[in-house]
């Protein structure tokens, strides 16, 4: 049938695999079945919740109860049926998750109908209690997180409502912090225990064992260094650090007795010590160590503000900024060194057995599908990234700096930039009233930061080791430069504000300045920042000139072009010179731009696209309209272009049968979600992240989708009934796509003929058919 159009793939498959990392069909298939089933289940449950929140009066209260209890019963019976027949293990988990969320809806409905006004902690606590059996049997990390979140939340509300433990107001907040830190630490320790058990099992009995146990060296490395933890463990870890930090700050910010000081500080130290012992000594986990450093720095900084700064007078702000930069730079240096140590070990491992590594990887992905975890795509990307390590090391070293370290540096840079600005304002207070002086000051600051960024300008293309060293010794200077540059931009903004009357001119000039900085300064964090601000200005200008419909499409286009290299169609020919987008100087430009445009796209579609918000941002008094269908059409066009780019990696045209199918599903999704415009944009981001195996952007896209739901609930453009209906439609369309995907997959699957009883979850090995299904 479609064979003719796809037949050249096998030959290009191997070539493309070697020349560039094209994601194979299996990854796509796995991703799409997972993604569509998760999102359609979520959308279905949300449709129900939104419907309850609409509080429809036509439907008597018994009707509402019947509806929700019926949904609850159906999902549990569905689970029981599937579990009894032993099929669709992932759907079983999803059904339990749905049932757990619906239980919350049912309890909320009781509260709504009878207007009892019981303390809200009771609702969340009852919710947590009712779902315990399902949490236990589902073995789904997301469900455990939901449960832990409920416990945390109900405990928080309980302490606020002044339960009997908290009747004594003096120590109630300390008691609350200690207990909640203990609860979360316990959860973290248990999660780590299970993770350890799982890795043990995997190393000994897992499907990869035949390869790994043959080689004792591999085993020891995986055990001592790092198997990335499941994402849910990081969430719990972040929660523990958050509450522990508040404990650490408690004695500093509150006047308290010696006992409570010792208690709070001791608890904080204990948590920090635990993190250091667990994630530095026992295994190395950079993200957890970043959290640890962040907590330590926050507490030290607050101590400095409280006890040292008062004696420094005017210098205080500068000293604080300096201290913050020094602390975060040394933390980042430490973490980077650990990172390169780990990488070097795994690279040496890769070098010796590249072939085995690939084998391990692909068999892992088999196992992954059966795996009982929801988004282990993330983990899978981690696995596949170990394969790329050899390439990653050759790339500029900034590319290997994990996103959380960049975020860490960025935050500390923002804060210290603000402190430096404050210091300069205090120092030069009267002189700063003149606009020219401000201009001179900002140019001077920019120049200093440029010099600080480029002390080794002429040795840029040196060896890896030298680049490493350079990076290490200049983390401090470049953080300082970043902060100075931010402060300079603040002054520049003030200058622009004073010199020009109309905000359109101010914003456009500021945008030009950002573009210039983007071109000049070579630091990737700074480039990200400049690109982000410049795109923000662009969005503002588009809204100002009454073209807000363009903004999402333009951002999506930038993100698409920067993240998907434009493949020349006769791709089988190996390119003679490096591909345009693989030029090293260009990739340092394109990467930050890609991240910036993606983040901005998510923000625009998640937060600001509603007409009410845009009007608020722009502040124009004139009539403001947002043409949803027009914006959606433009976005669909960009999505089709992105699909074309991705397809061209697989030697497929958008006009082929597969291409038409994909195009059709994009258009369908576009039509269904006209008023839910965030869905298409976030899907685009997620798909491009999968195409690039970029798990940072994938995580970002998924969390944006979650945040988007909350925004959608509170947005007042359309009634909840309409929202509920549209979510239902989205759920049905996604479910239909999933069914179609499975059917097509089976029609083409040769394995199906061999094992006619195999369930859809059974992996087949047919790469070609799956590549057809990548809408």
């Amino acid at each position, binding site marked *: 049938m479609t*064979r003719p159009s796809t*037949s050249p793939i*096998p030959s290009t*498959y191997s070539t493309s695999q070697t020349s560039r990392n094209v994601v*194979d069909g299996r990854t796509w298939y796995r991703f799409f079945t997972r993604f569509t089933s998760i999102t359609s289940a979520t959308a279905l449950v949300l449709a129900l919740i939104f419907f309850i929140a*609409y*509080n429809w*009066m*036509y439907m*008597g209260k018994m009707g509402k*109860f019947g509806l929700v*209890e019926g949904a*609850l*019963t159906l999902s*549990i019976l569905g689970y*029981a049926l599937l*579990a009894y027949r*032993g*099929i669709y*293990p992932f759907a079983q988990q999803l059904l*339990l998750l749905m049932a757990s969320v619906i*239980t919350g809806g049912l309890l909320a409905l*009781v509260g709504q*109908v*009878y*207007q*009892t*006004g019981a*303390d809200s902690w009771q609702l969340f606590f009852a919710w947590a209690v*009712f*779902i315990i*059996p*399902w949490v236990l*049997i589902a073995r789904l990390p997301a469900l455990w997180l939901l449960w832990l979140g409920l416990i945390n939340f109900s405990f928080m509300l309980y302490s*606020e409502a*002044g339960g009997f433990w908290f*009747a004594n*107001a003096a120590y109630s907040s300390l008691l609350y912090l200690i207990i909640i830190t203990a609860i979360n630490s316990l959860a973290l320790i248990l999660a780590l225990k299970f993770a350890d058990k799982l890795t043990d099992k995997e190393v000994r009995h897992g499907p990869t064992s035949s390869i790994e146990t043959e080689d004792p060296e591999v085993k020891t490395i995986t055990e001592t260094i790092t198997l990335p933890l499941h994402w849910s463990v990081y969430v719990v870890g972040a929660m523990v650090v958050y509450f522990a930090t508040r404990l650490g700050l408690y004695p500093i910010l509150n006047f308290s007795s010696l006992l409570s000081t010792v208690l709070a500080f001791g608890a904080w130290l204990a948590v920090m010590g635990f993190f250091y012992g667990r994630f530095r000594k026992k295994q190395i986990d950079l993200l957890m160590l970043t959290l640890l450093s962040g907590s330590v720095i926050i507490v030290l900084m607050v101590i400095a503000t409280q006890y040292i700064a008062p004696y420094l007078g005017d210098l205080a702000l500068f000293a604080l900024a300096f201290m913050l930069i020094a602390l975060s730079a040394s933390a980042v240096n430490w973490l980077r060194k650990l990172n390169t140590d780990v990488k070097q070990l795994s690279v040496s491992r890769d070098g010796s057995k590249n072939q085995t590594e*690939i*084998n391990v990887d*692909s*068999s892992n992905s*088999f*196992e992954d*599908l*059966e795996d009982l975890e929801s988004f282990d795509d993330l983990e899978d990307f981690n696995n596949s990234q170990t394969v790329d390590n050899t390439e990653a090391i050759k790339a500029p070293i900034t590319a290997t700096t994990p996103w959380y370290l960049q975020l860490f540096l960025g935050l500390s840079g923002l804060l210290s930039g603000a402190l430096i600005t404050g210091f300069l304002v205090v120092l030069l207070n009267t002189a700063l009233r003149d606009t020219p002086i401000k201009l001179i000051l900002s140019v001077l600051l920019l120049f200093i930061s440029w010099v600080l960024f480029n002390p080794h300008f002429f040795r840029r293309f040196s060896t890896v080791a030298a680049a490493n060293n350079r990076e290490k010794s200049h983390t401090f200077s470049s953080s300082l430069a970043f902060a100075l540059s931010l402060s300079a931009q603040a002054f520049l903004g003030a200058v622009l504000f004073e010199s020009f009357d109309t905000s359109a001119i101010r914003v456009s000039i500021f945008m030009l300045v950002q573009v210039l900085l983007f071109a000049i300064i070579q630091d990737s964090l700074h480039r990200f920042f400049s690109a982000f601000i410049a795109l923000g200005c662009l969005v503002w200008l588009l809204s100002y000139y009454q073209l807000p419909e363009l903004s999402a499409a333009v951002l999506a286009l930038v993100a698409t072009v920067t993240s998907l290299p434009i493949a020349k169609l006769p791709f089988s020919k190996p390119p003679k010179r490096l591909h345009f987008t693989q030029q090293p100087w260009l990739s340092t430009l394109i990467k930050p731009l890609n991240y910036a445009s993606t983040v901005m796209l998510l923000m625009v579609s998640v937060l600001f696209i509603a007409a009410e918000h845009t009007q608020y941002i722009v502040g124009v008094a004139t009539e403001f309209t947002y043409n949803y269908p027009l914006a959606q059409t433009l976005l669909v066009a960009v999505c089709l272009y992105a699909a074309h780019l991705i397809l061209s990696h697989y030697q497929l045209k958008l006009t082929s049968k597969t291409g038409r199918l994909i195009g059709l599903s994009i258009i369908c999704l576009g039509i269904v979600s006209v008023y839910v415009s965030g869905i298409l944009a976030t899907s685009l981001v997620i798909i491009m992240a999968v195409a690039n195996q970029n798990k940072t952007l994938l995580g970002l896209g998924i969390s944006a989708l979650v945040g988007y739901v909350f925004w959608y609930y*509170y947005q007042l453009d359309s*009634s*909840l*009934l309409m929202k509920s209906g549209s979510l239902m439609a989205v759920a049905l369309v996604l479910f239909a796509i999933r069914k179609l995907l499975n059917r097509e997959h089976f029609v083409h699957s040769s*394995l199906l003929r061999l094992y006619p*009883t195999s*369930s859809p979850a*059974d992996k*087949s*090995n*047919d*790469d*070609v*058919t799956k590549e057809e299904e990548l809408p």
Partner: protein
Amino acid sequence: MSITPIPPHTPTPTPPNESSKPRDNNTPLTLKTKVSLVLALIGLSITLVMTNLTIKNYETHLTTAEEVLLELAPVDPRSLMQGDYMALNYAIAEPIMAAIEAQEVAKGNLDYVETLYNISQDGSVIIKKDAQGVGHFVRLAQHSDSGDEPLAQDEMLLQYRIRHGQLKIATNAFFFQEGQAEAFEQAKYGMFRINEQGKPLLTDMVDKRFKVIEPKKVQSQQIDNGA
């Protein structure tokens, strides 16, 4: 006709886990599956039974308990309406808070009075209905057990909760269908059903002419649903 090339480095698919294989009708269920099934169904029945018992209790309360009106006090004149619910405060809160304060002062509990606006406590008061059915504050209940409180003929108990110095009677939010805020702006009284123990449930909003507010759109359908 279907060509299914296997990329050179791809191993043959490992057999999937046991759990993902469809179970043959003859093989018995594993212990794990049995436990899961039993737990899932137990969870469902507990949830349904508990919820429906709660619903039944509330329904009995609504049909048997006595109707009382309580006067509303404006919470915040600028944003009375918040989406699909209305924030409420009751005029009766003021005399109750004053009485609690006076009682503590009389006891010499000055520390307590200072923290009165940050305390959380539960308790009961005695109210009396007037001719229109509006409840008015009489005195604080002196006994923690509601059965012990001596009540005159026309007096009744009313439970209250103080949270951070704010007095709540049942709920401080009235929910209604999205988009019907306008109709409820007329609200002057909240209609409660208060049972023997003094436990209140908020049922309706009542305007100044003592008429239950029913948004026009749904008036005809309201009959079975109201009160």
